[in-house]
């Protein structure tokens, strides 16, 4: 199955691609729900959602860098990007829960924890994205030599 149909419709308006995103997004959401359930909070901060967002950022960096180095965004590569990137990792990570949890810490007057949670997510998340991109680039070079 591929996201490329004979039609000239843009990819986001093709049912085949939308179906891949629903499939991947459902799987990613299930894993996020289960992980958030088993990882305890740390000093009131939602450690589970933090780990989910950071690992998701790392994996998306690796995936997109790997795909872009293998060739243009068509055919099987686009299918993988839409299924795994937009679907699985997009559904696995979340911004809304991050924002509401950070607000919850503020409303509980836990200002230091709120600032730490917010900044650590954004900064460590960006570092994880960079690490994923670098790993994808390195593995690609290693595979070619």
């Amino acid at each position: 199955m591929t996201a490329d149909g004979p039609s000239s419709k843009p990819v986001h308006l093709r049912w085949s691609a939308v179906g891949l995103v629903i499939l991947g997004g459902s799987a990613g959401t299930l894993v996020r729900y289960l992980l958030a359930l088993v990882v305890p909070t740390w000093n009131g901060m939602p450690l589970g959602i933090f780990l989910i967002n950071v690992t998701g950022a790392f994996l998306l960096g690796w995936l997109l860098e790997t795909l872009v180095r293998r060739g243009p965004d068509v055919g099987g590569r686009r299918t993988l990007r839409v299924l795994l990137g937009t679907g699985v990792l997009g559904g696995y990570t979340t911004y809304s829960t991050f924002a509401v949890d950070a607000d919850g810490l503020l409303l509980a007057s836990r200002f230091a924890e709120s600032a730490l949670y917010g900044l650590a997510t954004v900064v460590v998340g960006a570092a994880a994205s960079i690490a994923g991109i670098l790993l994808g680039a390195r593995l690609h070079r290693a595979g070619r030599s």
Partner: protein
Amino acid sequence: MAPLWVVVALSLAGGVGAACRFVLDGIVRSRVRLAYPVGTMLINVTGSLLLGFVTGLALAHALPQEWRLILGTGFLGGYTTFSTASFETVRLAQERRWRAAAVNAFGMMIAALLAAGLGLWLGALI
């Protein structure tokens, strides 16, 4: 853990939320000719507003716990995304567009927290 039907429903709702993100981001990309990823910003800020509202309703006991899980953890959790936002921040930084990268990282966080706060307040009003 919630009953099995709730877990199945919240997973599927997450898939539908992800599909809404995919379609909306595609529409924004095709209409808005800006070299800035506005789609993800729009999605994450509106999703945070709505999750604040759903959470506020649930805290006021105006929404059953199952629906908080299906609409909040499921649909809105799948609709919003952190991984793409973080990736786009790094891409902007790679292009040495430092201000745009900072807005995408910290501006989005502040906007989402404000939107979620507004949602929580609106949810508690009802």
